């Protein structure tokens, strides 16, 4: 039962990210803001497919490959696989759609390592701001059996409320404070200020955080991610092919996936355990596969739809003990130049809400040492992690040569 570590290890470091591309998050968001001020509709120039296509073109140029080299395509966001392939003019021999990057990227690695295809483009496009996508209330997730579905008559709604309850549970169990939590959003904003393409680049002072309005108490507006338009593409191929390409390859060293689907609507693993057990299982797999430990992680990219993700992931993946995540992040520890730089491009709280996709791009840029003003000095490894409805996901990257 479960994964076979010896076979997983054969896949470790065999597949490389060779191209990344993203869209103009900051420019597009600013255009939407101006439109709102002028009383026009906030519709961007590109829809989800246009954003996906632009990101792909940029990733392809970054990789040095030709369109004809792509034989696998995985798509995420509100775009359909078939139509994306048609727009790109590619008939792939391998493909899948409908997940976040933390699920798709390991699947692509497995497809390449098994010989099902040789070079995969992972593509995401989401014009969520232009489309007026709503998360919560009668919006996304309300019409199917997710953790909202059965609880409408009690007014229960939104992912944010789940994280508000999780942070309240953390407070009730460990005595953590809102002021401590503020360090997450304030630090990640500081990082975004070093990224011209980040949507939010004004600093958040302690006072501004502490006095910000609540959305679902105890979480404030700054604890919530953005909603903006954008696209991301990531190209993977074999380690051998990567040697002939222009950019330093970034090897996928490991990945982990553990689930707590049983009780997902009951919220038991979320609220009683803050997912610590599934996070640990996911981390155990990724660390063992990559033959790394927490001490080897030079750069940490956490899914940050809500600030609460960061302390809970640090606790669950073993960077600190349960309950100590908010103490751990104080005093510059997660800043660039600190012990464990986190979400160095601004994450989803400040760079762009690309639902885990922009995190992979930043990990790659850091490991290629092309992150400019926000470069983590001589960084060799990066870890991405995510927990969400019912599961915990992790990816380990290593700089190739």
């Amino acid at each position: 039962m479960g994964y076979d570590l010896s076979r997983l290890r054969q896949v470790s470091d065999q597949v490389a990210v060779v191209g990344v591309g993203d869209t103009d998050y900051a420019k597009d968001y600013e255009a939407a803001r101006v439109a709102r001020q002028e009383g026009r509709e906030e519709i961007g120039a590109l829809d989800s497919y246009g954003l996906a296509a632009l990101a792909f073109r940029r990733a392809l140029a970054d990789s040095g490959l030709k369109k004809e080299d792509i034989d696998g395509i995985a798509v995420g966001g509100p775009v359909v696989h078939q139509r994306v392939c048609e727009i790109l003019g590619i008939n792939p021999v391998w493909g899948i759609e409908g997940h976040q990057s933390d699920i798709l990227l390991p699947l692509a690695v497995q497809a390449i390592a098994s010989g099902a295809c040789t070079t995969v483009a992972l593509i995401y496009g989401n014009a969520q701001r232009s489309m007026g996508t709503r998360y919560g209330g009668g919006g996304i997730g309300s019409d199917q059996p997710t953790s909202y579905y059965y609880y409408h008559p009690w007014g229960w709604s939104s992912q944010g409320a789940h994280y508000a309850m999780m942070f309240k549970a953390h407070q009730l169990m460990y005595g953590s404070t809102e002021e401590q939590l503020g360090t997450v959003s304030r630090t990640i904003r500081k990082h975004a200020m070093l990224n011209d393409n980040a949507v939010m680049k004004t600093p958040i002072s302690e006072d501004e955080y502490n006095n910000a309005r609540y959305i679902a108490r105890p979480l404030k507006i700054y604890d919530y991610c953005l909603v903006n338009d954008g696209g991301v593409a990531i190209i993977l191929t074999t380690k051998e092919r990567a040697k002939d390409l222009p950019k330093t390859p970034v090897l996928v060293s490991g990945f982990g996936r553990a689930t707590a689907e049983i009780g997902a609507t009951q919220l038991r693993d979320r609220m009683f355990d803050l997912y610590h057990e599934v996070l640990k299982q996911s981390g155990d797999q990724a660390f063992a596969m990559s033959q790394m430990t927490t001490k080897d992680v030079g750069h940490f990219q956490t899914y940050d739809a809500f600030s609460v993700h960061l302390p809970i992931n640090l606790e669950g993946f073993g960077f600190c003990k349960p309950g100590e995540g908010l103490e751990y992040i104080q005093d510059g520890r997660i800043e660039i130049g600190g012990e464990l730089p986190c979400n160095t491009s601004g994450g989803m709280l400040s760079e762009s809400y690309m639902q885990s996709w922009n995190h992979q791009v930043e990990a790659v840029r850091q490991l290629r040492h092309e992150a400019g003003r926000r470069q983590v000095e001589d960084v060799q490894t990066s870890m991405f992690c995510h927990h969400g409805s019912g599961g915990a996901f992790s990816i380990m990257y290593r700089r190739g040569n």
Partner: protein
Amino acid sequence: MTERRPNRTLGPDHDTFWAYCNQGEFRLQQCNTCSKIQWPPTPMCNECLSDEFTWTPMSGRATINTYCTFERPYYKECPPPWEAILVELEEGPLFMSNPKGFSVEGKERGTPVKVTFLDCEDDAGPFKLPVFELAD
């Protein structure tokens, strides 16, 4: 006073849950084979795969696990500030609900509460909604 609420989930098994609520009874499905109690309603026991259940009365006693307060509107029927609590029933399951007659602010995990019913209404008609008040 009847409160307007967002629509219930209705259908097989859900209808039975709400029918008991409407009689002022708080009952959940209990597996006839392995005794596991299920919430939300399910077509099959996820412990032993049996599909035979008895709708067993719960004691109504519970403790507060965690909570939050919606400070912006998500449903027109639920104006902010709107408090939600997750309680742990004495029999084990967690139950998402609302506090009645008290505010969650400053409440500790483990605070004892007990079930009561609110007269409510949605698109499908009037119904009784299980909510929780502080236990004596």
